[in-house]
């Protein structure tokens, strides 16, 4: 029962973060601010659901089921890089930004 509660808790928390991240993606005013939502909120969202899954399957099989950690680990490694590359691309394209963009070392058109 406690396990079920835990699973439920992590599930709902995780899903909430995922939703909030996506909400941010929708609502935030410019690309660079939108970038924050998914990279953080969503990763934790997935983290939450994955923890839920870990608990759930560990309980179900009787032994530890930790492989969901791998997905989390993987996302934690890759999500910042994705965000970094996206930001780099956005800077390169000089798309609209609320924060004044810095002069970057890029060829002019």
């Amino acid at each position, binding site marked *: 029962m406690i396990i079920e509660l835990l699973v439920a808790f992590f599930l709902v928390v995780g899903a909430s973060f995922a939703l909030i991240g996506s909400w941010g993606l929708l609502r935030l005013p410019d690309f660079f601010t939108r970038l924050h939502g998914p990279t953080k909120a969503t990763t934790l969202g997935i983290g939450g659901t994955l923890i839920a899954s870990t608990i759930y399957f560990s309980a179900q099989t009787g032994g530890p089921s930790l492989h969901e950690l791998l997905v989390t680990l993987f996302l934690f*490694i*890759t999500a910042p890089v994705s965000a970094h*590359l996206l930001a780099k691309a956005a800077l390169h394209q000089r798309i609209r930004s609320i924060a004044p963009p810095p002069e970057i*070392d*890029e*060829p*002019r*058109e």
Partner: protein
Amino acid sequence: MALGWIILLPLIGAVVSPLLARAGRDAPAWAAGAATALALLPALWHAPAIFAGGEVLTSVPWIPQLGLDFALRLDGLSLLFVLLILIIGLLVILYARYYLPKSDPLGRFFALLLLFQMAMLGIVLSDNLILLLVFWELTSLTSFLLVGYKHGSPEARRGARMALVITGSGGLALLAGFLLLGGMVGSYSLSVVLASGELVRNHPLYLPTLVLILLGAFTKSAQFPFHFWLPHAMSAPTPVSAYLHSATMVKAGVFLLARFFPVFSGTEVWFFLVGGVGLATLLFGAYTALFKHDLKGLLAYSTISHLGLITLLFGLGTPLGAVAGLFHIINHATFKASLFMAAGIIDHEAGTRDMRRLNGLWKYMPHTATLAMVAAAAMAGVPLLNGFLSKEMFFAETIHVQWLTQSQWLLPAMATLAGVFSVAYSVRFIHDVFFNGEPIDLPRTPHEPPRWMKIPVELLVAVCLLVGILPGQTVRPLLDAAVRGTLGEVPAFSLAIWHGFNLPLLMSLVALSGGILIYTLRHRLFALHDRLFPSVTGEVLFRRGTRAAPWYSRGVMDRFDNGSLQRYTAWLIGSVVVLIGAALWGGIELDGGLWTPIDGVSVVAAVILVIAAVGTVVVRHQRMLALVMTSVVGLVVTLTFIHFSAPDLALTQISVEVVTTILLLLALFFLPGGERPEVSMPRRLRDGTLAGLAGLGIALLAYAMMTRPGAPISDYFLAQAEPLGGGTNVVNVILVDFRGYDTLGEITVLAIAATGIFALLQGLRLPLPQGDLSGRRWARDAHPLIMAAISRPLLPLALVVAIFILMRGHNEPGGGFIAGLIAGTALILQHLASGIQWTQERLRFRYFPIIGLGVLLATVTGLGALLLGYPFLTSAVLHLDLPLIGELHLASAMAFDLGVFLVVVGTVMLILENLGRLSRQPHIHPPEEGS
């Protein structure tokens, strides 16, 4: 079998004589002559029996399916023709030896001539319709080659082609006619057909059959309106004209009329068709001949006319008509061959055949002139010559036959008219060439030809005289035999010079005097003729036709096949829509009863799919965006697979999709697009309709299909995967075991793709865009630090995952494909992050050997089973119980899967890396945008 030799010997001669061409000009001629003479022997050997009323038959089965036997028949009719073909053939060979220029080694000529001879003999000897047809078309072909013998001249080429097309097409009609005839009678044996006249004439298909066969006969025998090829065929060397266009080939048509006389004749249709065409040809040919200034042209139209005469005789449908026709065949062959040879001598010695320039040759070549004059007289039907006899019989027959119920006189009158013209052109041939003043501007001074060149003419003229004077003693037995062979019996007829004063004799006299009169009026007639008959003839139609056919065809092709893939695709999709429509036309019970509850997530996925798919279409001009949309579609498809219990598929789909995305991005660099749509509304409507119909059809089918309960064979797989296949992932067991052969094929597909793509990329140079579509130049930083730094440790991690997926594939979702794709993408990530060169330095293997090894491993694993007596690809499972480790299953399927893994890795790497290398080709700078 002796009959076979008649055909075989010329064939042997045709092979031998060109081989002897190096031994001088006499050798081929001797070979040809010998072959022809030898071929006479079997014919003569059988002659007594034939004269006695018998017939010789022989048959060897050839293609029973077709009813084609090598069946030969020698009866009176064929004997007549065999003798004509071989004897005149001998004379022509002798003549040709001297006629053809010294520069010609003669080998090829005699080969073709003998081939023709063989074909001609085949026609007259065949006792099988199909066999006859084979030889029939062979004569068209060899005549084509003979007419075009001097193919340097445009006239020769044109004449050859015309002859081929007309007679060849006629042959096709004949083919159809024969097939119908054979179908009616139930046999292609001529003997059977000849015995089934009653049946044929009363058959509903009588008329089409007759028309088709007549088309064959008329084209071959140059009957109006198919006559025009014959004058053009005169561009052939004169020996060819003498042989083919007077004595033999053109007689094939009338031979056919004779041959099938007992089968088809005796009906009104026969009478009108054959008689009518014969009459028209007779008149037209005789009339036209008069106006030809070319000696051979005159002879050609004369031949047409005489062939018309013979046709008309057979067309009359009476036994005596047939007798006269056969008799005239002999007579015409002799006098016309000699006339052609004489014309050839004149041409040979005087250098021209134009009668407006040839005059007064009597002085230069009196011997030849005498011969020609006798032959021409025979042609005109002068008494004491053979032509007179058959013409008398013809006149007599016309009187006896009822033509067009009311007018008794019409046919005799027309016959007489034709006789008049016939005499006129004969007179012209004599007077205009040998008398009529002095020659005008001849290339050389004419003189008598070599001795041996005249001998054939002399012999033929002698025959004209002999037959003309002593018909009963000379030709009668042969004619009787031929008549018996044609009609089955010999009707009473008299073969004499004198039958007393009668109507035919009067007609002859009218013809003779009228002809001379006309000739004296010729100049006024020439002028009138030129005014009245501008050259709208069958020939012009033919020329226009043969020229228009390619032209119209090109027009059709250009309109139909405009080189646009869109059109091809539209036809393909359209065809499929039509076929699906046809399948569903009778209605389909859509709901088969199966029903799975719908859930919210699926609805959301569907919404995403709809928006992404439609979005792809809408934003197709922004190609990168379209690619993003397509990725979303791929993601939803992956989700669908997962949702409906297909984890292996989901894994494969998502991996393939990413690799595809990379592939398309690589392509996008060179194909950035950015052009505006320029498509018209009707086109969009058309495409939209096609797309909608295709979508609708397939959706209906999908729905109907999914809702039906099914009873697939898969229960077997589910039951046996573990006990026999040694794995719990049934999909994988199917892939590597139950249907391992498919998988083997599939990795081969990958290997071929890699091979083909590699070849395609070699030497390819593409313009390198220096910036994106908005004109912004590319970023300087080729390999962002963070990306490079992260992708490096990711490689070992990904490889572990790949090995994990590979190892467990047999029991859990996974397998060689997915593992290969994961490993491949992990390596590709290195390319993305650090570049080709960096990666290549570290990956020290070449891809083709990897791919080849993979295929080899999978194949050899499969072949291993053969050693144990099992079929290819039989899997084996090894159960090991190891200390510490426990039970270990080693399935040969794993080795197979490893092969798959290698191929996938190698292929993915090879394709993507080589695509990436494209940008390192020597640069081509793009043209300015908009140009």
